[in-house]
């Protein structure tokens, strides 16, 4: 077996693994990324790439707002704009009852001192999204939100990592992890990597990696489905979702409609394969055509389901392992991790370089998902 030495081994070549590696390398660490397939193979390559603060769990709001500032200067971080456009995200109310819900949400945020979510009336909604069905009565908007291009983001983070000295091993799946003195020995078949620190950014497979270092973390899985259509003339700029519907609707820079919203396909961790459930996906098409009747005859070109981890409370796991020294977890983003990519990299770097972070991550501790085991 070969044995490569590093300061940090990052397991998982998705965007969160790349971001953590990038911040660590820039802080002077020697970083190796181990990716079982290739960079961006699963969730990072299958994401709708929404850059959204709108509607976040209150525990996520502080880091999400910081991440949004980072997206607005993403070019200074990774040398490319990543296709990011801040055309806003809009959560539409189709009924007065839905609008009341949105008003309550906005009021709660104001109370806490946040101003990024704003209620708009039907006429402002029409101005922002002229193609929207006229039955919509109002909306909640986060004007600084937007969307990016996931593949450009992957390219930019990867290039930045390599420029900062990160070594990326693709086709290199971790098979075992064992303690060796003050270090970890991470085995990937015939290859071995020795490092005092590990970042677990293994996405849907992160609980399996965690179990290799002794953390038994309850983790579910998501296989969110996406629809991409043929290109069409400019139709809308913001990303649109709707209360009570599984819908996220936007137009990409290429002109295709990208329709998601968390409808679930099927996936299998062992085969690493996912598939679309069209009966379920029909609900997404229904929501899209109800809100945008003008897209009924637009042709669907591709659909897919991406695989990623889902926690019981839909909050991520970000922080040190309670059991294993030098191990930082960063996974479980439950369908809304793309926007958090730059800030989570910075947090992981804080934790490994300084042993602590000023950012608010208490709610993301792994321990909350390990209680059941401790009680048993």
């Amino acid at each position, binding site marked *: 077996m070969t044995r490569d030495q590093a300061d940090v081994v990052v397991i998982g070549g998705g965007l969160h693994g790349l971001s953590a590696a990038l911040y660590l390398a820039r802080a002077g660490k020697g970083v190796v990324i181990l990716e079982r397939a290739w960079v961006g193979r699963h969730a990072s390559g299958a994401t709708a790439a929404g850059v959204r603060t709108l509607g976040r769990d209150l525990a996520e709001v502080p880091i999400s707002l910081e991440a949004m500032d980072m997206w607005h200067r993403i070019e200074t971080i990774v040398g490319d704009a990543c296709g990011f456009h801040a055309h806003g995200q809009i959560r539409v109310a189709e009924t007065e009852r839905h609008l009341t819900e949105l008003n309550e949400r906005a009021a709660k945020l104001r109370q806490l001192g946040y101003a990024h979510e704003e209620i708009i009336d039907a006429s402002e909604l029409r101005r922002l999204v002229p193609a929207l069905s006229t039955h919509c009565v109002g909306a909640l908007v986060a004007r600084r939100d937007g969307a990016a291009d996931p593949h450009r983001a992957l390219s930019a983070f990867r290039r930045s990592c390599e420029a900062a000295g990160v070594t990326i091993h693709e086709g290199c799946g971790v098979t075992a992890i064992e303690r060796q003195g003050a270090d970890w020995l991470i085995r990937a078949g015939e290859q071995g990597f020795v490092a005092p620190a590990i970042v677990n950014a293994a996405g849907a497979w992160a609980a399996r990696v965690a179990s290799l270092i002794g953390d038994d973390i309850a983790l579910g899985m998501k296989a969110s489905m996406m629809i991409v259509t043929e290109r069409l003339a400019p139709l809308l700029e913001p990303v649109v979702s709707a209360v009570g519907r599984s819908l996220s609707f936007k137009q990409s820079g290429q002109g295709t409609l990208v329709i998601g919203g968390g409808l679930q396909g099927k996936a299998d961790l062992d085969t690493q394969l996912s598939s679309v459930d069209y*009966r379920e996906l029909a609900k997404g098409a229904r929501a899209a055509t109800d809100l945008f009747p003008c897209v009924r005859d637009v*042709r669907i070109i591709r659909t897919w389901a991406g695989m990623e981890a889902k926690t019981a409370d839909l909050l991520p796991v970000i922080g040190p392992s309670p059991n294993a020294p030098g191990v930082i977890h960063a996974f479980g983003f439950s369908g809304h991790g793309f926007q958090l990519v730059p800030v989570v990299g910075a947090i992981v770097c804080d934790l490994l370089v300084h042993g602590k972070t000023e950012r608010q991550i208490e709610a993301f501790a792994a321990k909350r998902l390990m209680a059941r085991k401790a009680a048993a």
Partner: protein
Amino acid sequence: MKRVDVLIVGAGPAGMAAAVAARRFGLDVLVVDDQPAPGGQIWRSVETVAATARGAILGESYQSGLSTAEAFRACGAAYEPGTQLWQIEPGFRAYLSRDRKAWTLEARAVVLATGAQERPVPFPGWTLPGVLTVGAAQILLKSSGQIPDKPVWVAGSGPLPLLYLTQLLRAGGQVAGYLDTTPPGRLRVALPHLPKALRAAGDLLKGFGWATTLRLRGIPVIKHVTDVEATGKDRVEAIRYRTADGKDATAPAELLLVHEGVVPNIHAPLALGCAVAWRDDQDCYVPVLDRWGETSQSNLFVAGDGAGIAGATAAVLRGELAALRIAERLGRTDAQAAETAAAPLLLRLGRELALRPFLDALFKPRPQIFAPSDDTIVCRCEEITAGGIRAMVEVGQPGPNQVKAFTRAGMGPCQGRQCGYTVTRILAAAEGRSAADVGFYRVRPPLKPITLGELAGLEQEAVP
């Protein structure tokens, strides 16, 4: 939701034969086909055309499809023309669409008889209006008797250009010339396969007959042509090519038809997760099948040219074999009886397949097809050039799926049917790997584009 015993996709030779055979066992059969009438590509419109003057122009092997079509019509299988299959989920649940309305049905067994497509061949100017494939031109001739009103240039290799030119001349069309791109020395490579091929000598003689017709009619046939290019501003105005002695030649042209062989339609088996294998002799992927045509997925069969290019007679035999096995699986016959019935079919299929090694060697695609110049468009939908694909090789050893993600090649409405093999071959050459090792795009459903409205309509379909 409807349920059937057997869903057959495609009403060409294989699909029709499978339907007729399955009905003999009393199975409940549905045939769906995206064309308006049975016949597939080879016997397109045969019911209305076979007995007409156009039928005579198209020739005996075209007209011979009529009896199969008649048997199919009479067999009692349900038939849905103009219908597209756009997804199959395990079990099987098939998703179909016609006239912008989608529905689903359950089937206990599925036969994919979806045939072949012409091998896409990127060359400079291939996207110009006025450049068509020979197959597309032949469709116009078969279905509506359309004959180009200007002299036609044909460039390519294989039996189809010769057949089409013969048909076109019979129909009164004009031929400017045939640029035969078959490289020198191919006959020598193919000759060792000739003795076996002679078992199907009838078809071979037909081919030589076509070539003779061209000679007798004084059509210019320029052999061993390379570097074909179409030039023009808004449409093709001229062609350029290199002759065997290395000289460049040009000629005015308003219509250029190209053809470099056919490859199986592999998208449906790939989307369904069927195992496929690379075939060096036909430069394509084929589904891995047992002798009945069953894929790696139980009760899912591929019959016809989709199983590997072998022509209409073999397609009929493969369709019948698949139906036999399905009848056994569904309890309509026993294993012994199925074996007995299969024996003569397998014997005849063997004879048909014996012709292929000779033809495959004679018309093996020239290497240039898979190595377009940097500025040649490879992905027509997204306008990605060969150079754009090659540039991706700088980063690691990417496969087709990474190249797709980063360049958008293969993301357009044709879903990679036009650029898939070219991307595989470009990556193989640039990375020093075999095409088999590089692999093919992961195929995402839907198999045919459907509208958001069609999919939305499925939400109201009653769940059983």
